[in-house]
């Protein structure tokens, strides 16, 4: 009953954003954005700060509302629901159900500082998914293994390095078994020598799991390696998108070229 709005580019889109508008006060952050992600696709979003790239993730995770437009995740409307065939704003119950599709990793890790690593990971599987404590701890162990943090399960986040905290945060999001993982600049708050361990984990994830991944990053080389597609965002729209080889070798748009050029220059200067 809902879909006149699916120009169906990718084979089976799991995320469809259709003419999405987002304003912060007078600033137009997303300007009638059309954006799709296919199931299992690894998509990297690059762009200057303020281009709206993080906002896309935050809207999908329902941490920000939208001003207009339609978003579907896994075929279901995200920010609205249908009542008597008419779209109405989504209720909290609907939003909570939709959040189950997605997991998010934040720039600032956002682990709960008063809980051990293990409790950080088991909290939601126990109290949201209804797993038993034993099952949840088994699951926590499984994902801590994946991120190489099993020996730190009883520590508090404050006792860990930034890179370790971010790996735990990744395990915590995965433990909810989402279909889509959203990474919002996962290495931007890290000291340079800690970036590698986090990227290694994300790379492993992209290779070994059929998760749909949406990654906002400034790590261009990493984006080139793991992405199926790279999207360049500027001023709230997708300026250009292409497979990484194409995108980084021969960007078509002037704005993309400018961005990549200044970006590489500042990086080398740093």
């Amino acid at each position, binding site marked *: 009953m809902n879909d006149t709005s699916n120009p169906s580019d990718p084979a089976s889109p799991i995320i469809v954003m259709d003419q999405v508008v987002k304003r912060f006060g007078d600033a137009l952050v997303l300007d009638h954005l059309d954006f799709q992600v296919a199931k299992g696709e690894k998509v990297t979003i690059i762009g200057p700060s303020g281009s709206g790239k993080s906002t896309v993730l935050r809207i999908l995770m329902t*941490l920000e509302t939208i001003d207009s437009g339609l978003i579907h995740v896994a075929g279901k409307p995200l920010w609205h629901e249908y009542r008597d065939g008419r779209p109405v704003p989504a209720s909290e119950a609907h939003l909570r159900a939709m959040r189950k599709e997605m997991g998010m990793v934040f720039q600032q890790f956002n682990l*709960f500082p008063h809980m051990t690593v293990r409790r950080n990971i088991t909290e*939601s599987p126990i*109290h*949201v998914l209804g797993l038993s404590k034993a099952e949840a701890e088994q699951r926590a162990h499984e994902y801590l293994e994946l991120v190489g943090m099993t020996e730190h399960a009883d520590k508090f986040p404050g006792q860990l390095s930034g890179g370790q905290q971010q790996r735990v945060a990744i395990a*915590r999001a995965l433990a909810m078994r989402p279909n889509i993982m959203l990474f919002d600049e996962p290495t931007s708050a890290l000291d340079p020598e800690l970036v590698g361990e986090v990227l290694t984990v994300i790379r492993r994830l992209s290779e070994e799991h059929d998760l749909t991944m949406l990654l906002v990053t400034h790590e261009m080389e990493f984006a080139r390696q793991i992405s199926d597609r790279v999207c360049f965002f500027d001023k709230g729209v997708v300026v250009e998108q292409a497979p990484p080889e194409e995108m980084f070798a021969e960007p078509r748009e002037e704005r993309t070229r400018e961005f990549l050029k200044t970006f590489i220059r500042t990086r080398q200067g740093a």
Partner: protein
Amino acid sequence: MLFGIEWNTANDWVFAWSILPILLRGLIVTIEATLLGFVVGAALGLVLAALKSVRFRLISWPARVFTEFLRDTPLLVQLFFLYYVLPEYGLVLPAFLTGALALGVQYSAYMSEVYRAGLESITRGQVEAARALDISPLRIFTVVILPQAIPRIIPALGNYLVSIMKDVPVLSVVSILELLNVARIIGDRSFNYMVPLTLVGVLYLILTLVASAGVRYLDEHLPKRGIPLH
């Protein structure tokens, strides 16, 4: 004689010893008023903090104005208001309750700010991470926010407990027989103010030291592992 207890004015030491049981009665009233005032203040403060955090201005603004009003007017004025004005509207409370209520209401304004600061010290990222993990709003508050806020809130509330205790003598103006009032009456009747008032000072000092030690103990023994407090 007070509360049926006679005193002996042979010398200052004997006098002091003989009025101590009387003063202790006053001390108990002081402690009761402190505790009741604290409970009222802590509870009403939490309500005010919750109201002030509501986005809907029709609710948050009156709470804000009320808080500001409480903070900017003297306790004595508020006490007189409750003591003399409420009965005009048919609400007659015992003097002790009125006094404790006045203390509690005044301090609720300060305490609401303590709650607010404590809750606001929890970063937005914590709430966002919890929402991303699909944790229910109630559990976000009770499991994510509160445990991090409480270790910040308790010591500040404890300091107000001591402040309330030191404000209790104000209640003597509405004839509540708390410690200072009892001492004054003894002085009036024995023509010796020095001894009872000195004892009041000593008793207050002991009380404050004990309360402060209690607050410190609580502060040190609160479960706050891992919580960065500064």
